[in-house]
């Protein structure tokens, strides 16, 4: 049967073009790959190649014709043995042939809602947790020890879990978090890498595609910027791009945020950077118990998890449940202090600042409710909203910069879910919007202090 040659689209945006020149004429034999014609688009002159073999039966559009719409029949190709173009299927006038995308029945009705978090039902409740019952029997541990214990317990439980990163093995961890893991699990599962973040992050993701469960330690998250392409493009997006086939069970962990006097390049909080991206989870614990329970959850999670630790917190001690079954579900905030006057949210090191501020506020008769967010994505908006319904005021605290930050997100969530309960604007306490300075006095000025939080809480209460 004669074949219609259609005006091709030669770029993602082309809708029409000029048929500049016919290279073949009527009667010419063509084989697949032969150039038939030249077409001018708004960008370039391009060649149209034959896909089928045959002989040109008829040229339907004259050379030099401008504005030929994509999919307009431009020639008739005869196959072996055919002599007449008459047998060609009727060219539907000369309008562009509509190649209909199969319509989905009832498309209008089934159209999903716009990608907004707004929902009449309000924010989803956080996952349930039985963590409290484990606090009957606890032991004092530093955050450092708790993290190490979490990894060791999970590595004993699952042979596919391994740890890799700079100085994690022989050196016992740049911050001594992986102490004794090499001794217990050997060099096949506790792997010193060269200083090569982009490379080993990608290598870890590849290993996770094969079903291993890598824990990739960044000496600090500042260096993970070298690796962010693999974290976002390779780890977080592949499940979706593969239609659900290729999951990536991986944990990227390490200290995040400012330490002390290490300057601008070593002092950044990445919580909002990673929380921005779908396809992964972001955790930033404060206490040793949460560090342990959440790291165990992260290692068992079938998705990529960004696990943000804090160098200053490594040496802080907390009560940690002894039971190895203690797990903290990702996505559940924790109310650390009950209060009725103002809600204060924080994560990681800033939880300590928020608690210090709450103690000071209490001296002035203000009862602040302090929420440790613990997970930044998925953010437990439900718990914050429920608190704000009680206090009618929200102060958010984060070490990071204000623009598009975690506080900004919480403020937006309150607009959507708690607007009618707010008696004052949401106030964000955050790091100064500058690269972190080195000088001791300037560094202190740049980072949120309990005084800043106290002042913000009073402002929300219209007291000064």
């Amino acid at each position, binding site marked *: 049967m004669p074949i219609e040659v259609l005006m091709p689209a030669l770029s993602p945006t082309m809708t029409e073009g000029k048929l500049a020149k016919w290279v073949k004429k009527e009667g010419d034999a063509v084989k697949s790959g032969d150039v038939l014609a030249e077409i001018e688009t708004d960008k370039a002159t391009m060649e149209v190649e034959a896909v089928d073999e045959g002989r040109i039966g008829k040229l339907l559009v004259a050379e030099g014709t401008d504005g030929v719409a*994509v999919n307009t029949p431009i020639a008739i190709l005869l196959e072996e043995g055919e002599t007449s173009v008459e047998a060609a299927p009727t060219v539907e006038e000369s309008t562009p042939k509509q190649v209909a995308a199969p319509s989905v029945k009832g498309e209008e009705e089934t159209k999903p809602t716009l990608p907004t978090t707004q929902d009449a039902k309000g924010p989803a409740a956080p996952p349930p947790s039985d963590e409290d019952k484990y606090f009957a029997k606890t032991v004092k541990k530093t955050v450092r020890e708790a993290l190490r214990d979490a990894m060791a317990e999970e590595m004993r439980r699952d042979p596919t879990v391994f740890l890799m990163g700079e100085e994690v093995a022989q050196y016992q961890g740049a911050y001594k978090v992986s102490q004794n893991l090499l001794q217990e699990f050997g060099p096949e599962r506790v792997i010193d890498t060269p200083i090569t973040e982009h490379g080993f992050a990608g290598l870890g*993701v590849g290993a996770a595609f094969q079903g291993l469960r890598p824990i990739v330690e960044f000496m600090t998250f500042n260096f993970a910027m070298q690796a962010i392409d693999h974290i976002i493009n390779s780890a977080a997006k592949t499940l979706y791009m593969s239609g659900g086939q290729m999951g990536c069970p991986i944990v990227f962990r390490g200290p995040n945020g400012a330490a002390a006097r290490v300057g601008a390049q070593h002092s950044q909080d990445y919580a909002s950077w990673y929380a921005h991206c*779908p396809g992964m989870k972001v955790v930033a614990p404060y206490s040793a118990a949460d560090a342990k329970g959440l790291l165990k959850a992260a290692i068992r999670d079938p998705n990529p998890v960004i696990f943000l630790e804090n160098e200053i917190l490594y040496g802080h001690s907390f009560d940690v449940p002894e039971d190895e079954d203690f797990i903290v579900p990702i996505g559940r905030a924790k109310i650390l202090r009950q209060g009725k006057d103002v809600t204060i949210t924080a994560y990681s090191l800033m939880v300590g600042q928020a608690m210090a501020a709450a103690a000071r506020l209490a001296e002035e008769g203000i009862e602040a409710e302090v929420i440790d967010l613990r997970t930044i994505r998925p953010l437990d908006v439900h718990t914050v909203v429920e608190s704000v319904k009680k206090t009618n005021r929200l102060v958010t605290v984060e070490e990071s910069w204000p623009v598009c930050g975690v506080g900004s997100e919480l403020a937006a969530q309150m607009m959507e879910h708690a607007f009618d309960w707010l008696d004052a604007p949401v106030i964000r306490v955050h790091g100064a919007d500058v690269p972190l300075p080195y000088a001791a006095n300037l560094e202190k000025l740049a980072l949120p202090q309990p005084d800043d939080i106290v002042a913000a809480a009073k402002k929300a209460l219209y007291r000064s």
Partner: protein
Amino acid sequence: MAASRRRTKATPDSAQPQNTPAASPDEMIRYYREMLLIRRFEEKAGQLYGMGLIGGFCHLYIGQEAVVVGIQAALKEGDSVITSYRDHGHMLACNMDPKGVMAELTGRRGGYSKGKGGSMHMFSREKNFYGGHGIVGAQVPLGTGLAFAHKYKKDGGVCTVYLGDGAVNQGQVYESFNMAALWKLPVIYVIENNKYAMGTSQERASAGELHQRGAAYGIPGVQVNGMNVLDVKAASDQWVDYVRSGNGPVIMELKTYRYRGHSMSDPAKYRTKEEVEKMRTESDPIDQMKKHLLDAGIVDEDKLKEIDREVKAIVTEAAEFAQQSPEPDPSELWTDVLVEA
């Protein structure tokens, strides 16, 4: 083993069909058929793109067929494969279903990624094909990680990482070479040197010889005529065996050529028509194989016509499926973001 002793030297310009006994007559017929399937599939994809049925980017493999067919022929079941965005040929060579590949190109629910990945992002766990990656060079550490997993699991598998000559100047490639060499990972880095990184020729982009890029890490490098499938198969047999035996990585530079543009919207101002035409007429991998099959009396013209018909039928069926398969259900927008624990 010193790399220099094992290096074979060949270029597309000096391509000569060889009588290397790297394959039996049946295998040679199979290679011909697989290369022809890729060629016809890609021509059809180009046509569907022209009809507006395929959108966005679409990077065709036409001209490079001998590379993936020759390499894959040397691999075993269980070996893993990863590549960049010029990936349709690799998927077909991994025995993925042409219908599923074409339906992904048209963005339909019958596609390998349910229409959510597109030309550059397809995967098959079943066939150990790990994508389909759109960031130049990113597949190199990922594939090195696949090789790491083979070694960790002690499953005897190797990973083949395909990268273009454009990817060899990315830093992460060398980060990967270093770790692969340090840890003796079972990985074959196949540089598909088609001479042009988009529109920039190798001479303008890359200093030195590409197959020697691993020399500083002690990784053996070999240059192979990528326009002759038997040459590719012979070299692959040798080097896959070397890698599988625990000797660490190898770099194979396959000298090849793409006839079509970098992607569909490529005006091809960076090379002459004569250059393309010369490669097509003198070095075409399919024509070479066809001539070899006929000259050696392995097949006759009728048999070739039969193969042509079979391949055409497969491609036609794939194209029909790709147009008939419905678009993804709107609810698919929200699925596969996270694995529900």
